[in-house]
Each structure stands twice: as C-alpha cells, then as structure tokens.
C-alpha cells in the first residue's frame, strides 16, 4: 500500500519490520529522523523485543552493535559522515569478525570545512572495510534494500551498509510502499549466527592472527564478497517475486540497449540523470544510464557487460580521491571492456551542491562534442579558485582556505 512518507520514516518502519533485537543510536544529521522513529517504536512497545541504546558516540554505537551481533542478536544502527569516520575502526572490526550488522549510511560530506549536506565521501572512505555497500536511488529502494540487507548480511556473515543520500532522500517525503510484515517474515528468517558467544558452547572470538594466516583470512573475506556478487541478484529477484519491485541487485541499466554514451552514477542523482537521458533521447541521441546499486562488492562483470557497446562512458560521482580523481570511475575503468570506451569523470554535487537535469544534459553535450575533459568538476567557480590560487602564490601564509573562498563567494563570485 503506497504511503506518502518521509524517507527516514520509511527506513525506520522497514527496519522495525525486520525485527532487530538491538538498535544503537547516536545522533548525527541527516540520520537522526531514522533512529528517533525507531526509538519511539521501541518505547511504545511496537518493536519488541528490542533493546534501543542511546550511546555516547558512533564509536560506541558500532561497538555495541558488534557485541550484540556476536551474542547472536540482529543488530542495526545508522550514521553519517563524521560519525562513520569516528567509528571507522569498529566498522573494519565488524567486518573482520564477520558480524552481520546492518547500518544505514545517510550519505553526507566530510569536513573540514564542516558540511552537513550530501555527497558520497563518507561511503568512499570505508569502501575497503569489508562491508557490502548498497546504494539506493529512491526512498522505495532504500526501504526495500534494508530488508534485503539483513538477508544478505546474515546469509554471508558480512555486515551491510545501505547508503542513501542525506537530506535528498532521508528528508524527502514521497510515496513508498512498505513491505508487509508477513512478507518480511517470510523473506527474512530468524538470525542464525555463524558464530555466537554462548556459555554452553564457548569459543574465543577475535584472535590475533599473524603472518602465517592473515592473508588467508583476508582472502576468505574477499571470497565472501565475491559470493555476495552471486547472492545479491538472486535475493533481489526473490524480493521482486514477492513484492513486484526491482529494488536492489547489482546494477540498474536504463536505456542501454543501443546507447553509445553511458552515464554511470550511484544514488538519488540517477533519477535526474534519467530525466536528462530521456530528454536527449527525444533529441535522437543514443544515451543510456548505468546505475551501480552494489558498490562493494563491485560488480565488475555486470558493469563490463553493460558497457560493452558504449563508446563514451561518463561517470558522475559525488566524491573523489584528492590528487587522483574519481573513485567510482576508477572501478568502472577497471571493469570497462578491453575495447576501451572513452571514460570521463565528472565530480558533482559535493557538499550538497545541486545537480540539475540541465547540468547533466550539458555534460552529455560536451561529451558529444568531445570537449568533456577526462576529469572535471561540475559547476566549479573558476574565478574563486583563480583568486585563491593567486593569493597563495603571492604569500605562503594566505590564511584559511575555506574562509577565503567564503569571502570571495560572498563578495559576488557566485558559482553561476
């Protein structure tokens, strides 16, 4: 039954239907509405049995989740941005211990300068942590992905992170069809841990592993990620059979059938990009979109297959590796067929800067004209950059970079 819901609310309702037994919360924008709503459900007894724990930091939030999961409880938490970085040691640890924690990441930029708005820098910072990272395009998909996330995590003993764009999705109110409790229950069996802390069958979990076995441990974890490449599509298909919705899976191809130009992206921006593609298709251009739904494990084969006819590939991504360039783009390049389409990276939407249909059409135009550089930054204010560069060249002590830029922007060097 479709309802008009805030994204966070949809997540909270769906997570509750997954019957988590321990939920940990430490507030950080834009994740707060999710945990507030779950907290309320625990308080009023709608979600039971469930321990809702207000902790003193994200580090504790992930740590509590680790303990709960190791003790056999279905565990959930949510965070964003700085919070993810603050818990990063525990994020790696949960994966290393093979604990199927599910976490919502309300994607947000990382400071300094502090910035509460959306981009994907946080998710990219933990891409090597050993978690499965799924990106949602819509609130419907975000909600559905949580049900699949618990199923995947527990089947594989691997933690899963559902990434959804902060504010853009979390705070957007739109129609969502929540999965019925009965459907969730049939889809998601009770948690059967692969290992558990049990006085009746004690084990030591978390040994120190030396050079003699560490590589094998790591390789085994890698193999579990590769297993996930098999399992993610089948779980999505099973979910689709129950709900009729094509949420999840590895990739979301859109109008790729004869496309010679393909835009690759993740998350909510895919909708905007599809609009732009539709517009360009109207104009007769053979343009398509490839949404990457599973970023880790990275679906190399699926991406390669999707791009096999493309002559130009444009990766639009909301994060980059300073001093190098696109992060997603690097993975796409690795996956690209040997024939080697031209690949351009457009870094866009950093710190919440809007990405419009017109922007995307502009990118497609420039690509078609051959004027799109291999790496570009959407709507970059060249004047501001130039003035700061000049100032830095004039004096080695030019003052805080961010403040200077703000001053320039305020002085009329607006980015458009």
């Amino acid at each position, binding site marked *: 039954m479709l309802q008009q819901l805030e994204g966070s609310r949809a997540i909270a309702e769906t997570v509750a239907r997954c019957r988590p037994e321990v939920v940990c919360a430490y507030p950080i924008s834009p994740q707060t509405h999710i945990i507030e709503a779950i907290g309320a459900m625990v308080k009023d007894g709608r979600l039971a049995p469930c321990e809702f724990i207000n902790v003193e930091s994200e580090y504790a939030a992930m740590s509590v989740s680790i303990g709960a999961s190791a003790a056999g409880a279905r565990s959930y938490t949510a965070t964003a941005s700085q919070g993810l970085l603050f818990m990063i040691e525990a994020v790696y640890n949960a994966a*290393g211990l093979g604990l199927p924690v599910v976490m919502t990441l309300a994607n947000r930029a990382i400071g300094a300068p502090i910035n509460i708005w959306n981009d994907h820098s946080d998710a990219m910072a933990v891409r090597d942590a050993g978690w499965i990272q799924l990106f949602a395009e819509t609130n419907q998909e975000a909600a559905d992905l949580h049900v699949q996330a618990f199923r995947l995590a527990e089947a594989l003993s691997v933690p899963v992170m559902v990434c959804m764009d902060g504010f853009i999705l979390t705070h957007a109110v739109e129609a969502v069809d929540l999965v019925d409790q009965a459907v969730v229950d049939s889809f998601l069996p009770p948690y059967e841990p*692969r290992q558990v802390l049990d006085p009746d069958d004690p*084990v*030591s979990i978390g040994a120190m592993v030396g050079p003699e*076995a560490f590589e094998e*441990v790591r390789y*085994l974890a890698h193999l579990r990620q590769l297993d996930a490449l098999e399992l993610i599509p089948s779980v999505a298909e099973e979910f689709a059979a129950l709900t009729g919705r094509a949420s999840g899976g590895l990739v979301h191809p859109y109008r790729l059938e004869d496309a010679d130009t393909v835009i690759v992206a993740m998350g909510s921006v895919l909708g905007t990009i599809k609009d732009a593609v539709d517009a360009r298709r109207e104009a007769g251009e053979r343009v398509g979109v490839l949404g990457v739904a599973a970023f880790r494990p990275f679906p190399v084969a699926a991406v390669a297959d999707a791009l096999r006819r493309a002559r130009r590939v444009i990766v639009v991504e909301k994060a980059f590796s300073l001093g190098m360039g696109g992060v997603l783009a690097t993975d796409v390049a690795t996956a690209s067929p040997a024939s080697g389409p031209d690949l351009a990276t457009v870094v866009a939407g950093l710190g919440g800067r809007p990405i419009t249909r017109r922007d995307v059409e502009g990118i497609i135009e420039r690509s078609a004209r051959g004027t799109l550089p291999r790496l570009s930054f959407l709507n970059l204010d060249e004047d501001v950059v130039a003035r700061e560069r000049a100032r830095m060249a004039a004096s080695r002590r030019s003052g805080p970079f961010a403040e200077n830029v703000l001053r320039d922007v305020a002085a009329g060097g607006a980015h458009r």
Partner: protein
Amino acid sequence: MDRPFAITLPVGSSRANHTGSWRVERPVYVDRLPPCNDACPAGENIQRWLYHAESGDYETAWRTLVEENPLPAIMGRVCFHPCETACNRVRVDEAVGINAVERFLGDTAIARGWRLGEPGPDSGRRVLVVGAGPAGLSATYHLRRAGHAVTLVDGAARLGGMMRYGIPAYRLPRAVLDAEIERVLEMGVEVVTGRSVEDIAAARDEFSADAVFLAVGAQLGRRVSIPAGDSAKVVDAVTFLHRVAEDDPPLLGRRVVVYGGGDTALDAARTARRLGATDATIVYRRNRAKMPAHAEEVEQALGEGVTVRWLSTIERFEGERLLIEKMALNAEGFPEPTGELEELDADALVLALGQDTDLSLLEGSEVHVADGVVPVGESMMTDVPGVFAGGDVAPSDRTATVAVGHGKRAAKGIDAYLGGQSFERPERHPLAAFERLNTWYYADAPRTERPELERIRRQTNFEEVIGGLTEDNALFEARRCLSCGNCFECDNCFGVCPDNAVIKLGGGDRYEIDYDYCKGCGICVAECPCGAIEMVPERI
C-alpha cells in the same frame, strides 16, 4: 559450530603450547626439617603430629608421636621443650605450645585407653635393660617394636627412675606416670624390680642377654664440704625428693634453705613449701640470668613464695644460722667473692649441687668410664660390643627427654648390632629457617596459656600445678603451627601460579608441578607460607 577460520578458536587450545620450554629454573617441592623437630632431644616428628592434631585426628597424632616417644603424657609435663625455644613462630608472636598439645594427646590417649602398637615379630634375641627411667623405658619400647625380648631390671621398688623419685608429683602426677609405664609393659616385658645390678657381665650372663643397655641414671646427690655443726640438718636434694616420693619425707623444719641453681633446687624448695616450710630460700652463687633452671620453673617457684638469694655462697652452717658470702660478677661474668658476709636463719639445708652416677656395676668390666660418665658412640654403644649406655649415664644434658632420645637411639643401635649391621643415623633434611617462610599468610593468634592452679592451692598440696588444655584450646594451639618446611596443603602454590602449572592432587597427596607449563617464575616459592618449595636451576 561452523567457526570462521583463525578469528574464532576452540577453547583451551593453548594447552598445545608447552610454555615449560621458557623455564631456566624449576620449582621443586621439598621437606625441610622444622626447627622443633631439629631441637627435640627425643627426635619427635612434632610438625607431623601437630599436622594430624590440627584436623582433630588426635589418635593419628598420638600414634605419630609415639612412633618416636612412648611417654607423651609424661613429656607433656616434664619436658623443658627446646622445641618451643626453637619454634619459628616466636618471631611472629609466640611459640606454639607444643608441650601443652603433647600433654593433651598423652592424656587423651590415657583417657581413651589407646594402646601402643603390637611388638614386632620375635627376633629370638634378648636385651637386658638396666634402669627403668625414661632412657630404659624408651629403649624397652623401641626394642619390643623391633621384636627383641627385653628384661628390665631396676633397683627401686617401682619403675620410673627419676621420673618417680626425682620429679615431684605436683609436676608429674603418679597416675600419669603409672599409666604410661604400664602401656609399655603391656607390650610384653620381663620386669625385675628391687634388684640392683652389681656386675654387668654377670647380669648379662644371668639373663642370657644378647645385649645390654645401661641406663641407671644419676642418682647420687653431689656433696660439697660445708663446715657444719653436729646439730645442723643437711640433706641432699636427691635423697630428699626420693623420700618424699616414697611418702617418707624427712622433717626439715619451717625454715629451709636450698643451695643450688638447677631445676632440682627449685623442685626441692617448692616441695619444702608444700611440706610446710614457711620460708623456702634458694641460695645461688650467680644471678638470675645465669641460673641453669628453666625460667618458667623459677617463675612458678617465685609465685609460690620461694625466695632466692642471688649471688651468694654458703660459708658455714651452724646451729640455726647460715653464714653467706655475697658474690659479684667479674668482667667475664664469673662470680667472685666480695668478702661481705650475711647471716640467714635456717632449720635445714638442702644441697642441690648436681648429681653423680653410680657406676660401681662397671667395676671389673671393660667398659670405659671418663669424668663419671660412660662415653658412647653414635649408636650409644660403649667400647664393649653389645653394651650400650644412655640417659644420665652417658654424657648429656640430663633431661628426661634427652634420656628418651638416648633410649630410642640405643634401641636402634642394638637392633643394628643384633642384626650384624652398622648403625647409621638417618640423614637430616636442611633446616626450615625462618627466612624461608612467608609469614604474611599466618593469621595472628596468641598462644593459649595452660591454666595454672591458683597459687594459694599449690603451696599446700601436691596437686598438679599446670592444668591441661581443653580440646578446643589444644586444637587451636595445634593450628598455630606454621608447619615450617613441610607442605600442609594450603593451596597457595595451586592458586598463585599464573600458568596453572600446579596440579592439586588432594586428599593429603599434596601437589605436583606441571613442568609442561611451568615457566619458572618462582611465585609459588615466594608465596609458600612454610618454605616447602625451592627453585633449582634447570638442567639441560
């Protein structure tokens, strides 16, 4: 459980890692010689019988005790307990009241009618024991245990020697004496009383003895020449006490002076008080610190109204007057006359200046006598094969306990002699010195004093002065034992090992070190209360 590789491990798997390879020193359990045992002239295993007494198993304690000494009720009264002087607990609070517990065990044994063990299988050999004092009785007991027949001959009417005729009844009730002697005799002994042996060789033949143990004691009071008038009443302490024991006390009058500083002097003075003397005065030529008598005897005598003239010698005894010369200690601590004279009223003078042995029975024999005593070897054998001597006859401190020890050693010597073997003293363990103990673990506990008869009562009768411990007190006292040098299963080593490398065997079997895991840290040694573990370098 389907365990993830390497990260999750099955419990206790580290037992595969034998950390014993780290060790360069290893702890080893030892039994050290407790100072009480070391000091005991009778060779009692005091620590061991206390160990049994601690658990309330008095019979086992008593049986352990009488392995070495068949007269615990007597020893518990008359022994001057060098064990307590040596006791390590002195340095914690006070010595353990070993003597009191010994008496408690001895009395309990009498009360419950416990009997000594059966004699050993008959060896077909006979031993003549001359003298039924502590040495003779002890030898008799140990010889019977070894299966040898014993003929026990004594010149007095009754057995016991100086225990009967020297030690006053207020210190050793005769019922106790009789009971313990009777128990030895129950093992089957041919007894001949009232018969003085005059020729040792002849007696050996007469009784067809394969060996002789000579233990006639020192029954002759030593006399010194003190100028005395005809009317002066002078008697030696040995005779005095002997007659008191035979219920035939000499009349000494109301003012009795005893000359001497040993325990016999005190016995004489205290006995005189009990016989009605109003003034019982001891004259001794040195000071109290130099007095050979045991301090607690002195204390008890003073408590009973006996007075002492320290640093005094008797010059003359005339009429009812003693002339006394004051002495002073010189730089070496020896008394020297000062020329200063005093008078002291006295009805009688008792000389307690030491005793001599009557060795006339050795005249004409090959047995060598030197300085009034018979020199003996390790096995108590004289220079005549088959003739052994002990107790006051042999060079010694002349206490009942020493005599008991001599009797035991002589019995072993005789047993070896009869078996054609050479006697060897068993090897002694190294001493459990105080420094080896970790006394922190011992709870603070004062010694339980044996109740003393009210002083007023003991001045007038021969009732026993020192009472016995109640069972509770005896148990408490026994548990004050530090068990020096001998494991008493306190579980400390088992508990304090960081490597779980001590195996508790339990049930009196103590512990074992598990050298597979012991890293040789030494904590068990450091924390063993009684010093029963030591570190030794690891051999390759």
